[in-house]
Structure formats: C-alpha cells, structure tokens
C-alpha cells in the first residue's frame, strides 16, 4: 500500500468516526432517534469501502501460498 492509499483510508476512517458520533448522539441525547439509522448506515458503508479498498489495493493478511494462487503467480 503506497502513499496513494492514504487519502481513501483517511476518508473511510473519518466516515466511520462521523457514523459513530451520529449514533452516539442518537442513542444518548433525547429526541434525536432519527440520527441512529444514518449513523449506522455511515459506519457500514465507510467500513465496507475500507475493506474492499484494502483488498483491491493489496493489504494482504492471507498466507503467501493462497496469495500466490489468487494473484496468479507460481509458487
């Protein structure tokens, strides 16, 4: 993962944080129930974006053999 990945990663993390703040407000403050659903949606979408982005740009946590077979390299 090179420097190009920094911006999307930061955007994804900020999305998750804003989502957590919205749900926290919705759960703890009176008469703000309507914030819970968009907050949870933002958490879901941002973290899914991060997951897919990491997978596509090469943050690998899978064993080398499997990675090789995935990438089409010979072992």
């Amino acid at each position, binding site marked *: 993962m090179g420097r190009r990945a920094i911006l999307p990663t930061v955007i994804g993390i900020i999305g998750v944080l804003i989502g957590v703040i919205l749900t926290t407000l919705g759960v703890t403050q009176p008469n703000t129930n309507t914030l819970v659903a968009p907050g949870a949606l933002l958490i879901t979408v941002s973290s899914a974006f991060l*997951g897919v982005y990491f997978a596509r740009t090469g943050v690998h946590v899978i064993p080398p053999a499997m990675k090789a077979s995935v990438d089409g390299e010979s072992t």
Partner: protein
Amino acid sequence: MPTRDIAWNVSEIALVVMYALVAVQMLFLSYGAARRYQAWKSGQPYGPVTEVKTRLSKVLQVVFLHRRILRRGYVFAGLMHLFIFYGFIVLFIGTLIVLLEADIVRPYFGVSFFHGPFYVAYKLIINFFGLLFSPGKGLVFYSPLVVLGALGLPRMWREDRSLALALLGFFVTLNAMAAVSTYWGDEVWGPRYIVPAAWALLVPIAWWATTINRQRVLVGLAVLGAAVQLIGVSVQYSRYTEHVRALTGVPIYRDRLGVDRERIPYGNDGTRWVPELSALLVQSEALISSQALERLGGDGLEVTYAPFEGRSRTLDFGDPRYTVSLDYWWIPPPDHRWLARLLALAILLASLAAAAGLYVVTFGRGPPWGTRNPAPAQ
C-alpha cells in the same frame, strides 16, 4: 396491547459500542468478500455457466438444505451446522425487525408496528424456539432424550415418511400453539405446555439407536433425563422462586407487579432466558447443598448471580431460610421412622432391579424386544 421495550435495561454505552463494532465486522466481511471475488475472477469459466436456472437452484440447495455439508458420513456435523445456521437466520430476522421498528419506522414515521397481532406473531416464533432451547424452559434440557429423537428423524424420514410427517406435524403444531401465548406455563418445572408433544420426538430414537454404542448413549441420556425429573420432584417449586428472589433482589413472576421495572435484573421475560437462574440449575444447587454437602458435614453451597447491570448478590444455601428438604408433597412419608426407612429401601431395590432388568434386556444375548435384527446404521 402486548409489546415490549426494545433494548430495555441495556445501557447507552453498550448500544454505542454495538453500533461501533459494526465497523470492524463490515471491514473484515468486505475485505474477505473482495478477496474471494478476486480469486474467482482470476480463474477460468468452469461448468454450466450459462444455465442460470440450474445454478441458482443448486446454490439455494447448498445454502438452505446444506447439500454439500449434510451428506452420508457427515450427518452429525451437517446437522449441527444446520441448527447453528438456522439459529442465526432466525435471530437475524428478529434483529432486522427490531432495527426497522426502533431506528427507522418509529423515529421517522412516528408509528410503531411492534405491538398487537404483529408482536404476537413475532413472539410466537421466538417462543417456539425458546420452548425448545431456552435455559430456563427448554425441552432439550428437561427431556434430553428428544435430542436423540431429532437425530433419528432423517433416517425415519427416509424409511417411513408418513409416520415421520405425522409425528413432526403433531409436535410442531402443539409447540406452536403453546408459543402463541406469552405466558410460558411458568411457576412450574419445565415446559409443561409441550409435555403432551414431547413423546413425538422420542419415537424416532428407534431409528437412531441401531448400534451398541448408540444404545449405551441412549441409556446414559435416559438416566440423565430421569435425574432431571428427580430434581424436579424432590423440592417444591415455590422454593425456587424464593431462591431467585434472594439472588436477584426482586420477587419473581406475578409477585413483581408494582416493582419498578428498572430494578428487575433479568428483564421483562421472567428468568427463562438467564442460564444462571434456570430452575434446573438453581434447584440442583439447592439439593446438592442441603442433601449432600450439609449431610456430609460440610458448609452450604454459596452461589453468586452477577447481572450485566445492577447489584451482584450471593445466596448461601446453608442459610436456614434457603435450605431445602426433600418434599414429595403429593404423598406424605409414613410417620413411623423405621417404616419410612423400609419404604425407602424398597423403592431403592425396585429401582435397582428395574435398572438391572433394562440392562439385561438391552445388552444381553439375543436381540432386544424382538427376533428381527435391527438394520445396520446408515
């Protein structure tokens, strides 16, 4: 109108943490799914790619009928997986309904559907599984033999489908009827409303217990089942309600009307979903303490119940208020001391003779209860 509070007695911090953890789960799920997709994309097309209908049908069969896991030689693993799978599916649907009600329909549209007939239907499904699996009332804990019956059902289904259908229909219908009520037949031992249906799951045991080892398991579980009932009949159930009151600090069941609901540490649903407060466990602890430990000269058992929220309490079964005496209240023991001992000895001898007779019939030479050898296990 019947309904319940959502996330009642769950703190705000716990709710926030729950929503925040969604991020971690989604991160892993999306990452794994994307990697998998890349792996598929890197391969060559294989099999009947254009036959969408056949492929779709195969996918549905593999997912919902476990065609790939539930196969010969892997029946136990497959069945366990099936139970876990459908447990998650049912709970997931229940959670989606709660999400719709609490976070979308109520705050945005100002209406609520989580009461009245819909709530009753929702509870029916949850109660249905609760009557089978909840720690306080679940049939599998109070009548463990039904587990073997469930294991015998697949083979029975293959060999005698009409009988299997009749038994299943009877069992499911009666359980569903009991599940309609939000009242679980409480204040008695076990899931009494489905007692008339429990036998239906004992019949298929004959299709399971086809090897000597399986028959040994059957005898072991039968003994366990009898022990469970013995625990039930040895103490009055009203003692259990006193013990729960001491453990939780509030009265149980209808006596708690008028008590501030925030003070009840086990929620709106009685104690049946709380494993530590299961009658089976509490009554066993009381009996072990009063009838074994103390009779052998030891101290009474101390049991602690620590709810997620609220005060943790410890109950000392050695306390004279909480010790239990053997109380077979439907028939008083003879007044004369030696007569009572003689009666106990006679019952013990009769039980031993019955157990020995059962053992000989089951494991002795010659096929048990019939001349035809049972078919070998599949």
